[in-house]
């Protein structure tokens, strides 16, 4: 009997939850705010869905509802991607070690 591809995706999903669990517990508490901004940025990978939506059947047969929704979704996800990664970078630049005393 063949295994449904859904089972494979479910396996990936469950294993990723475990990876997430262990990786996130090792995040130092002082970086919890950047953690939130970076998880927010990466969850905008939903842009791949938006790309499919906005390009679907755009073959000259006119613009469909999907295309418009996809266009908006790309814009929203892009705000998140740029905003999320840049603000994370900005925060991480601030975390500095103690300077040596001889200055």
């Amino acid at each position, binding site marked *: 009997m063949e295994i449904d591809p859904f089972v494979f995706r479910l396996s990936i999903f469950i294993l990723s939850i475990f990876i997430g669990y262990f990786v996130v517990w090792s995040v130092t508490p002082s970086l919890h705010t950047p953690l939130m901004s970076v998880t927010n940025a990466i969850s905008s990978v939903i842009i791949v869905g938006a790309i499919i939506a906005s390009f679907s059947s755009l073959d000259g047969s006119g613009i469909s509802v999907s295309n418009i929704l996809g266009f908006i979704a790309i814009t929203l996800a892009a705000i*998140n991607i740029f905003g999320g990664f840049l603000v994370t970078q900005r925060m991480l630049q601030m975390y500095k070690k103690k300077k040596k005393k001889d200055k």
Partner: protein
Amino acid sequence: MSANLSSILFLITGILFILALRGLSSPETSRTGNYFGITGMVLAIVVSILSVDIFFTNLIYFLIALSIGGVIGGIIAFKIPMTAMPQLIAGFHSLVGMAAVLVAVSAYYNPESFGLGAFQAIKTASIIEMGIGVSIGAITFTGSIIAFLKLQGLMSGSPITFPGQHYLNALLGALIIFLIGYLISNQSTQIFWTLIMASFLIGFLIIIPIGGADMPVVISMLNSYSGWAAAGIGFTLENIALIITGALVGSSGAILSYIMCKAMNRSFLNVILGGFGTDSSSTNIKEKKDQKPVKSGNAEDAAFLMKNASSVVIVPGYGMAVAQAQHALREMVDRLKKNDVKVSYAIHPVAGRMPGHMNVLLAEANVPYDEVFELDDINNDFSNTDVAYVIGANDVTNPVAKTDPKSPIFGMPVLDVEKCKSVLFVKRGMSPGYAGVDNELFYRDNTLMLFADAKKMTEDIIKNLN
């Protein structure tokens, strides 16, 4: 691009995202981690563009959308003050939620291009996944909007409750589950849109009863939801990158919620049911205790105490963020260090309005991160400390949490500042903290109250340190 190749590349995206989170285990590796994240995102976008059949004109639409979003996102990222980080994150979560809803609606009306079957004849598994994804996305959207409004101060931070609220929520929750199941047999637009509307409504309803200072839990929770929404869409679109990312973000947010709840000694359910801090009983206690004498001092007394101390611990809280006092605070600490006073910072997990909020603010003010300690690492040091400088924190220092089982905050881990030789409390007035509990510390003999705005008081102390 073949489906197999793109799947493998999406898997690589997932791995890069895991490395991005892994990097955050220490500040030194975190910046590299962020580059992994950016690389993963670029890869995901390029792969998905190459896997759709597109014409040049369509690419222009994509670039327009990307640039609009990029410019807006870039401007926000550079302009946003660090104190406003909680509302920014809440706002960003709402965008993820909305994007999930839009993608799902688009897939619903045009399933052919997603390979999900035909309109209103979508494969059973896909329609369930889509229903779950769109519902969580919608909840994330309205919930985050409310969280944003509360954090931005555009809406009162106090809990909004009404009779029958929990029943209404339970009813709506049951309706949503029923509708998702009903979509299997009937994919009509009415059912689909009712599902979306019910989800929007419940997202709104579950956040309004939650008080302002429970926001660390709420933001973490919405963080988690945005992940599950992405995973739901990932299952619908059969996209590995989305499934992995959704799982990572979902568990990350869940862990943060757990940490925040534990730091307040409250169950997750208790936070979600909301209405905390409005007990009439705690108000009565406050009135009774107001009669007790407190010692209050001025900047000169505080400066004298700290100058002659050998060690000082700073305990910042949300009040510091509100008063934007972090830079003045750093300056004060610099002066103290010149006088050979040993200074460190103690941060309670729920200080501020989101996890790690205080750490970012102190980092912004150029405080080296190795001078900043978490609750567990510093709590034993208070007994060897001369002065605790509590600035804008209240409930997280209240010894009642250790002594009075009747107190609403009993059992919450607190910073043992009362063990210091003297405690300086910068506060605008005698009002209790967010929990509505009077702080016993105010009436102790070794406590000196400094009634002023946090920033102004700190600046005055700096003047007196000269």
